[in-house]
């Protein structure tokens, strides 16, 4: 059984069908890059997996847990899958440490002392142990995004969804975030990431999904997808001219 099973998923906004029957199975420890033009449905797919959007047809399951739109199922699913956003979305009124502690204490009812130990550990892991008491607006974009990663990791998810997590960063800050992701990948974390960092996708990912107009247009290992794109759409997207 795959870790994440996405079967015939359709999603409409009004009469705009954004996902037109998506099938992807993700094995434990896989790192999936999702690429494609803006508007092709990449974010919507990730948001469906995390239950931020409800699906109209099909099914999604994570580690055997079905995605159903009630609070209990959603919470169970979200404890298994963490999500990192393009805009960081740190809680601005809390320090970095508190950001990482909050959901442990509120959702998992972890005692404060334990949550604090975990928060320190996770901030260390992303190289920000010394920023425990800093507020988000005292951190650079790259640092904020690493705190967001630590915050998600503190919930001990079995998979992470990353939606263009470096797109809002200045170029010189991209690498510090990608380095953290790479580290996670090498530790065996299952990752699905929408990204424009083709080099990163090529080096780190086990499979690449090319989305086009709400469908999985091509899927395969990076060497195939990047070196030998089959469809004209992917060729055009990659800027390959023959």
């Amino acid at each position, binding site marked *: 059984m795959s870790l994440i099973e996405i079967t015939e998923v359709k999603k409409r906004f009004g009469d705009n069908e954004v996902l037109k029957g998506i099938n992807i199975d993700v094995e434990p420890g896989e790192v999936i890059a999702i690429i494609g033009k803006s508007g092709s449905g990449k974010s919507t797919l990730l948001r469906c997996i*995390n239950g931020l959007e409800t699906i109209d047809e099909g099914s999604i399951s994570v580690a055997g847990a079905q995605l159903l739109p009630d609070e209990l199922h959603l*919470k169970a699913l979200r*404890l298994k899958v963490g999500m990192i956003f393009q805009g960081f979305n740190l809680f*601005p009124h809390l320090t970095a440490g508190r950001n990482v502690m909050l959901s442990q204490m509120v*959702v998992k009812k972890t005692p404060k002392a334990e949550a604090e130990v975990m928060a320190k550990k996770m901030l260390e892991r992303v190289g920000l142990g010394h920023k425990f008491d800093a507020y988000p607006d005292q951190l650079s974009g790259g640092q904020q995004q690493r705190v967001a990663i630590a915050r*998600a990791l503190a919930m001990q998810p079995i998979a992470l969804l990353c939606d263009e997590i470096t797109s809002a960063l200045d170029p010189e800050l991209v690498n510090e975030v990608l380095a953290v992701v790479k580290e996670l990948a090498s530790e065996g974390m299952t990752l699905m990431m929408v990204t424009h960092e083709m080099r990163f996708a090529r080096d780190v990912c086990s499979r690449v999904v090319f989305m086009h107009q709400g469908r999985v247009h091509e899927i395969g290992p990076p060497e195939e997808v990047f070196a030998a794109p089959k469809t004209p759409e992917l060729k055009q997207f990659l800027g390959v001219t023959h």
Partner: protein
Amino acid sequence: MSDFTTWDILRNLLLSARWTVLLSIVSFVGGGLVGGALLFARIGKGRLGPAFARTYIELFQGTPLLMQLFLAFFGLGLFGIDVPAWLAAGVALILWTAAFLAEIWRGCVESIAKGQWEASSSLGMGYLQQMRWVILPQALRIAVPPTVGFSVQVVKGTALTSIIGFVELSKAGTMVTNATFEPFTVYGFVALIYFCLCWPLSKSSQILERKLNVAHRNH
């Protein structure tokens, strides 16, 4: 000409100003409590809650406070219930304040970025947990200046209760004028007392706004 010294006038006015202050506090605190409940109904997920709260807010914002006072005072009288002026004044002002505070606070809650909801959702928090730990703490600091600012409207609103016979500062002004025939002096003092009550409030609203903006924007 009159048997009243200026001090007599001022003393009488100040004594009745206590009722203006008390009514303002009661209205503001009571209105805050009812307004808080309205806020939750208004932004909640159900269908009935938001519909009720929206109608309530529109009704109270869409009619003059004076009419609300009349309805509270005379309306219940029609059913044979004798409503004392202080009760009608208190109830009407509480309900009126609640409508405005609920609407001010709704604006503050809705100004919190959507990403805050999404991030807290994705971490497994439920609606009430998100509200308690993520949304309200941020909305609260935005809400302080306009809320303090609105308290000025409440103080001024209490003046209308003189019309249904509640003896607060304005009513006392009329009564003292009738006894002294010195309307200019009397109402001059009345205005001055109102100013002394309202000015610190609006000033502190301004200062709070600047403070919350300048000092670390977010915490």
